[in-house]
């Protein structure tokens, strides 16, 4: 194994406390009276930040060669963006339902 550079204790425990802190922040936000879309957007941004912290430091991707990141992550993000195509149909369904009632 090649570990030219790796995250030390200080970084790992900072990431851990950061993740716990963001979780508490999400918990506090959940009980705020915000519109569902706003709440969803804020929570998803926080979740993506948490996921990035886990991938970069716990899964060590930050310290790997850039070729590994380029192979794995952009294709995944592309597939996820393509999947959002279903939501147009979902809101159409909600709209048609409101017409019937």
């Amino acid at each position, binding site marked *: 194994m090649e570990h030219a550079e790796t995250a030390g204790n200080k970084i790992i425990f900072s990431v851990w406390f950061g993740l*716990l802190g963001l*979780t*508490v922040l999400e*918990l506090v936000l*959940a009980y705020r009276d915000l519109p569902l879309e706003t709440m969803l957007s804020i929570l998803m941004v926080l979740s993506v930040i948490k996921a990035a912290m886990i991938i970069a430091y716990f899964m060590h991707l930050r310290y790997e060669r850039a070729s*590994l990141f380029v192979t794995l992550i952009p294709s*995944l993000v592309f597939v*996820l963006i393509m999947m959002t195509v*279903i939501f147009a149909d979902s809101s159409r369904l909600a709209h048609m339902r409101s017409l019937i009632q």
Partner: protein
Amino acid sequence: MSHSSGPLSATAVHDGRDLPVWGGGALPYAVPSKKLGMWLFIVSDAITFSAVIFAYGYLRLAAPAWPRPFETASIVNATVMTFVLLSSSVAMVLAVRASSLGKVSGAVGWLVATALGGVIFDILHIREWLGLIAEGVRPFSNPWGTPMFGAAFFTMTGLHMIHVTIGVVYLLIIAVGFGRRKLSAVDVEVSGLYWHFVDLVWMFIFPLVYLLSAKMA
């Protein structure tokens, strides 16, 4: 066999010609092939989870009123589960580090601690499931409306729970194998990638399933 540095510098005689063969010199990703294999699995598994999460989003957006059944006790339970899983990931990082330094007992200890976190997570989650089932939630019916709530909830959290359970068994097998010096530090690291991924997925399921369905006072 190659004694030179370039990846294609060695040659072998084939059909009477000297053809270049890969001498094993340079790895394009500079990671062991097992590790690349696990990363590729993780990307495909991420797409599987995403499909389930997007299906939930589809249903919820189309539904006129999605149930918000989770009392404060359930939200606290799910938050504790999140803390347990995040902490087990730190134990996993320490297991990987101990194994790469050749500290066998340390690595085995941290692996068992990680697996224990998974067991606690499962117990807390099954308790939540049993509570909902007792309240009358079924895959296609529940007391609050939108019938698909149960199917979406049980599929998403169930798929994750299966991953945690498989992870616990996987980590214990790695702990035994590494303890008997039959597995290498790479095997510990690869199991760590899987465990962190299971943790990562929960970072999305927790807010989407629990926080967005918290019962408001």
